[in-house]
């Protein structure tokens, strides 16, 4: 079983290698196998902005309980290149495992060209300080000496050669691509994992290529048996005995969940311009563009790759004008280009959804790394003042349901909705409860399908009043092409028909109409979609008035960390996850904060942007901020340690987290 360590009862498994060398496949197989073996997993992928050659790695945490975050310390490191050992070898936990290639022990740091100078210097200095040579062997000795690491030296080339002889396949060069599966399988042998379950996972991951699947299964079995017959595998503290998985659990990636929500929500038009980490959302939709329907019909989604993000958002708006639920998916640089059109959508009350997969900014930033630094931008993007909703998901499971809600908000309030997601969500994989497609109703708001010529919504000229002024700031909306419904739209201030006006009285009325929709939204949107309070239901509240406030994908690491604090310190800490960022649910959050004495803001950005919103809307100071902006998501351990510092009374007002590889 999984032993109880200080931080948690879980196994952290890491595989690393050159981008394009099969790191992802290995991690996907491992994740899938563990999930099929009845375990809960949380995995995250780190990679360079590069096609082939740079170092990428995948961290998978495995537990027999639900988990929501990763840890920095590595229990088991699977490597088949030198760089992985150099970069991660010092992060092995006590009595952790390193699997490495026997042919690489004498490789020096200088020989690893993809290891950038800064990292190379840091590692060299560290090894020198500890009187170790700057070689793979040096790092292994360091791990052995300081963390008592268990080392498994694997002659990959030799095993591959034996394997190729055995299967009478002389093309060794093709087989070298299976080194990743052999390394993975070696780790599975150490974990005493059921080889049958592993074989099933390999077949699943390579399901479109049955021949490749078969040879990989054979290679995995060969490597597995080699480990069992060559080494004493009893030393490692972890074993993963499989059990029957629950039929309610799925294994899902964060770049699939929101797209699945879009299909369910009825999004039938999506545009995009390629950008990391948002493109996968659109590619998933394009791969699944034919939609099965419960009424036996066949629906479809049109996905258009546009020339830029300006075209992406304006095309999505054009589609929305025909009554279609439409969306675009982008990241910060693309969203910057969308700012002007966002205002047009607000001005003309056109519902659209923008999936904003944040990454490290500004400019190109760290294009494949994580950050939550676009909150204030999303709240304020565009010139002039117009209503918009900014809604943030905290994890993969939420992002499915939130996507449906985002479309409901967009149509009900006839405005753009910016759905905040990020790289940490998009590039993680997790076991979670199977999505319930039908738990959220579809609300199209005041969308009319037809209008009669004698409708009371007609103006004196006999034209439909698209922007009719009445008690209700939300006017009925009709799709382009509807009989008797002719209206006009313009980015200029406009009359009820939609014609240009510069009249000061009409201007005031139209501004009031548009902006007051936010009051309606704030009144109608249910509390659970505004903010979630964790730990508040505890009658024997032991928090001593300590509350964390945060938003987005820090949720998982915070939840796991406060559980750990409770476990080790017996102290409960409350956590408010703000989901509706704009309009800001001040009343609700004010109520949640009533007994709070110490307010801790946790965010993946430099300026504590949610903290700014709290100060602005609640006139309430943040007592401690925990921030991180090095591009790597916060781990549960980092948050736990920061909370412990605060509890001990020995913490600065602003704690900057810096872990990352």
């Amino acid at each position, binding site marked *: 079983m999984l032993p109880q360590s200080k931080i948690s009862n879980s196994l952290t498994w890491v595989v690393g290698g050159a981008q394009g060398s099969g790191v992802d496949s290995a991690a996907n197989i491992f994740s899938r196998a563990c999930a099929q073996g009845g375990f809960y997993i949380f995995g995250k992928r780190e990679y360079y902005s590069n096609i082939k050659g740079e170092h990428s790695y995948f961290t998978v945490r495995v537990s027999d309980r639900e988990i929501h975050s990763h840890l920095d310390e590595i229990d088991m490191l699977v490597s088949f290149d030198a760089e992985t050992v150099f970069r991660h070898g010092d992060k092995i936990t006590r009595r952790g495992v390193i699997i490495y290639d026997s042919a690489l022990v004498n490789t020096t740091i200088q020989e690893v060209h993809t290891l950038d100078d800064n990292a190379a210097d840091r590692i060299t200095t560290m090894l020198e300080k500890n009187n170790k040579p700057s070689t793979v062997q040096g790092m292994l000795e360091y791990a052995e000496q300081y963390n008592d690491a268990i080392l498994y030296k694997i002659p990959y080339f030799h095993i591959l050669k034996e394997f190729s002889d055995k299967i009478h396949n002389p093309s060794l060069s093709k087989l070298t691509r299976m080194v990743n599966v052999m390394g993975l399988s070696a780790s599975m042998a150490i974990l005493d994992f059921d080889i049958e379950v592993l074989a099933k996972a390999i077949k699943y991951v390579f399901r479109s290529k049955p021949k490749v699947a078969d040879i990989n299964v054979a290679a995995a079995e060969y490597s597995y048996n080699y480990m069992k017959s060559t080494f004493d595998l009893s030393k490692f503290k972890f074993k993963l005995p499989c059990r029957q998985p629950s039929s309610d659990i799925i294994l899902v990636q964060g770049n699939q969940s929101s797209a699945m929500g879009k299909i369910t929500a009825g999004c039938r038009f999506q545009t995009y311009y390629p950008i990391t980490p948002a493109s996968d959302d659109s590619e998933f939709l394009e791969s699944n563009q034919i939609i*099965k329907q419960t009424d036996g019909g066949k629906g479809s989604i049109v996905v258009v790759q546009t020339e830029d993000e300006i075209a992406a958002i304006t095309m999505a708006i054009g589609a929305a004008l*025909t009554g279609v639920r439409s969306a675009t998916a982008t990241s910060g640089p693309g969203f910057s280009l969308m700012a002007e059109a966002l205002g047009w959508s607000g001005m003309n009350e056109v519902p659209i959804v923008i999936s904003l997969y944040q990454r490290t900014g500004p400019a190109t930033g760290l294009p494949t790394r994580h950050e939550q630094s676009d909150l204030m931008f999303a709240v304020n993007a565009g010139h002039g003042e117009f209503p918009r909703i900014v809604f943030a998901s905290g994890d993969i499971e939420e992002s499915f349901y939130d996507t449906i809600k985002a479309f409901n908000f967009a149509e009900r309030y006839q405005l753009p909705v910016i759905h905040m997601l990020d790289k940490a969500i998009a590039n993680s994989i997790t076991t979670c409860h199977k999505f319930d497609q039908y738990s959220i109703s579809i609300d199209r708001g005041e969308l009319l399908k037809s209008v009669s010529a004698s409708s009371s919504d007609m103006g004196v000229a006999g034209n439909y009043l698209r922007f009719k002024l009445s008690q209700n700031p939300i006017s009925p909306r009709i799709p*382009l092409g509807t009989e008797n419904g002719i209206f006009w739209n313009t980015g200029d201030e406009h009359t009820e028909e939609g014609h240009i006006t510069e009249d000061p009285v009409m201007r005031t009325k139209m501004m009031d109409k548009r902006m007051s929709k936010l009051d309606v939204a704030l009144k109608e949107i249910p509390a659970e979609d505004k903010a979630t309070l964790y730990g508040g239901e505890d009658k024997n509240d032991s928090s001593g008035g300590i509350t964390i406030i945060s938003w987005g994908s820090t949720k998982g690491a915070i939840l796991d960390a406060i559980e750990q604090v409770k476990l080790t310190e017996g102290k409960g800490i409350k956590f408010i996850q703000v989901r509706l960022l704009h309009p800001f649910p001040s009343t609700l959050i004010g109520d949640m904060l009533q007994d709070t004495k110490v307010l801790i803001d946790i965010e993946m950005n430099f300026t504590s942007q949610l903290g700014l919103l709290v100060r602005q809307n609640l006139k309430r100071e943040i007592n401690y901020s925990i921030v991180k902006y090095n591009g790597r998501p916060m781990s549960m351990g980092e948050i736990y340690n920061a909370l412990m510092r605060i509890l001990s009374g020995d913490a600065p007002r602003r704690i900057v987290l810096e872990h990352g590889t």
Partner: protein
Amino acid sequence: MALKLADYKTDIHNDWCPGCGDFGILNAIQMALFDMKIPHHKAAIFSGIGCSGKTPHFIHTYGIHTLHGRVMPFAQGAKLSNPELEVIAVGGDGDGLGIGAGHFVSAGRRNVDMTYIIFDNGVYGLTKGQAAPTLKLGMKTKSLPQPNVNNSVNPIALALVSGFTFIARGYSYDVRHLKDLIRKAIEHKGLAFLDVLQPCPTYNDINTKEWYQGLDNDDNDNDKNSEVSRKNIPRIYKLEDAGYDGMIHSEEEVNSKSAQVLQKSNEWGNKIPIGIFYQNEQIPTYQERITSRIDNYMENPPSKQDILDRNSKAVANISNVLDDLRIDK
């Protein structure tokens, strides 16, 4: 009730300058819609920003006045979601060939079945006459502090190399001819581009109505030694009158006819051709390309799809996707 031409007009006050070339284009659009008896609600006019951007407000169909340079993506989004809609995009040369040039090129690559009309006057009128993309190098219109330092873009040639499948030029003071061109553009299967020469009486004092009429034009310009000088030769002439045929009848003609388009598009000065430069219906439209992936796209496009049932639950069924993610199978 039979439709009248007046039914395509609105009572919105038109604030274009007296003598503006835009009036001719507006009339021609209304006449083409009337000619084709397109029901008001089945048409949507999209526009960019500038004087031409106001056009939809004067036409009694759905009218969407968008952002500077962005008319094409807005319009394509609507057309692709509802292919039954007759979509016409309009805008100035600054809008479509300056700030919106990227969208112009990309629209050509798609070949969405719709029409794009550029009101081409060489100046940014509404911002008081700065040089626009079709103004020739060295021209100094009266509001320019210095002669134009940029060379001009050739809209016809750009449309050709971008992939537009109907390319024509009209003249705003030949309304009947322009109306026929608009009608042909709408009837064309694919993306039609119409470059309309349109004098700006306020800011472009070079390419004026009189200039197009050739009041200053005589053939001595061409032949200095000629004994007899002919005066007042209109610069504008019609390609069809000159025996020009831009229709592509087979793939083999594409190269030779494209060369012919480029050659004709460079004619400027004493002789300026209008009419159809190029028409090619052999290229699949974007709608046809979508249909090859989604076979019921034309019958059941995005705008026609029901997305919820009587109980407001989703009609989409993603159980196959979810089953694929199950781990117990």
